[in-house]
């Protein structure tokens, strides 16, 4: 066979192999002309003891984000497409009365547009912070539902996604704020107890020598308490006196507008307590 032909075939085979090798990369596309029925939406709403409510959102095209984030297509809102967070009523249904000087302040307290990027420090979040996401903040207003509205340039808002946050709660003071990681059990209590929420707990321990570690627990129902047995906090990398923070997050799933291809909206109430650990 002609040597030149063989070389060409071989070179082509190598190029094709190289093109198909390696990881696929995430990419972002503009939302222009992308129908809502092709959008997968993840909306997360967090409240904490600061009496602020934080909103995060991320949109992907055509499907849910993959576990390893391969081949995901993230959506960038452009050309009049906007995300709005609201208290009590979707912004698409909200109105100001004729008393503008008195009613507009209430309106502005209840609605905010999400901006690109922003905070990225939430526990148990499904947001993939390496790609396009959106965030905003409002003051905590009360126990009415919070809405996430996607306003489209075509004038048809996707406005039926909402969730009622878990109620504010208080963690009881620990009977002993100095816990032995190897010999002491740890019981954390809180009030009030609430139905239809799940509980995620994360305990972060950080030592002066720079070593740190954490444990997590999940409870499917809220019984107002979590117990860690003696030794559950033990890690052989942690020595001496180490500070610890227990984060308790109550989570309730809400109702996502059915016009999306899929996704979820979740409300979270976060509290924390600080204590000390020793060997």
């Amino acid at each position, binding site marked *: 066979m002609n040597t030149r032909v063989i070389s060409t075939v071989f070179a082509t085979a190598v190029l094709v192999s190289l093109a198909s090798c390696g990881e696929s990369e995430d990419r972002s596309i503009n939302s222009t002309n992308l129908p809502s029925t092709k959008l997968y939406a993840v909306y997360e709403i967090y409240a904490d003891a600061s009496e602020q409510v934080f909103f995060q959102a991320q949109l992907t095209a055509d499907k849910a984000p993959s576990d390893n984030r391969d081949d995901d297509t993230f959506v960038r809102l452009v050309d009049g497409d*906007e995300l709005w967070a609201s208290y009590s009523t979707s912004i698409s249904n909200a109105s100001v009365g004729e*008393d503008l000087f*008195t009613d507009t302040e209430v*309106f502005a307290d209840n609605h*905010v547009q999400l901006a690109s990027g922003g905070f990225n420090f939430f526990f148990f979040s499904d947001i993939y912070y390496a790609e396009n996401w959106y965030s905003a903040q409002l003051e905590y207003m009360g126990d009415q539902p919070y809405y996430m509205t996607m306003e489209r340039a075509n004038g048809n808002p996707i406005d039926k996604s909402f969730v009622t946050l878990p109620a504010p709660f208080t963690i009881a003071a620990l009977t002993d704020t100095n816990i032995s990681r190897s010999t002491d059990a740890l019981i954390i209590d809180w009030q009030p107890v609430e139905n239809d929420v799940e509980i995620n707990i994360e305990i972060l321990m950080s030592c002066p020598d720079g070593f740190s570690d954490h444990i997590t627990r999940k409870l499917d129902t809220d019984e107002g308490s979590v117990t860690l047995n003696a030794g559950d906090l033990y890690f052989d990398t942690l020595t001496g006196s180490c500070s610890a923070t227990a984060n308790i997050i109550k989570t309730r799933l809400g109702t996502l507008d059915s016009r999306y291809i899929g996704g979820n909206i979740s409300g979270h109430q976060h509290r924390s307590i600080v204590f000390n650990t020793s060997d």
Partner: protein
Amino acid sequence: MKNVFCSVFATIGVLLSPGLLAQNVVLEGSVGIAEPQSGPYESSLLMDGSVSYSSSGWLYRIGFTAFDAFKSDSRSNPIEIETSGVYLQAIKVVTLEPFDIEIGAGLYRTHSEAFMEKSPYNASQRKIGSAYDTNPVVTVALVKNMAKSFSLLGGFKYINDVSGSDLHMIYAGGRFNF
């Protein structure tokens, strides 16, 4: 609102017609500061222009006021309310040398629009409301004749309940008498 403006300008045109200019027509312009009584809004500047007909110790006035936006900048997402209005007034002139004191009452027709900044990171605005109002107005002014046809003036104006807030104004300006 367009019809109101057309009426105003038509009236001004009639008043400025050569026949009536031979009578007691007063052209007035002023600037001032307006402060809303309700809400977290800062005071704003105003410009006012009017035409009046003078007869037997009275002024019969039609005018227009434009306000700079009332702003609440202390918020993370500021709100602005833009207001303008036309008014009709009857004003009693009392002469207390060397000044004239003018006390007036009438009706103000205002149009207001409210805009909200979308977020702390997006300065573009969203219109969130509008309103038309017709409300009573009272004025007190001090006028000093400087020349045969020219006077300086200063005064206070109060408009009741403009889109949820009373407006208090102080103003100063000049007047041409024909």
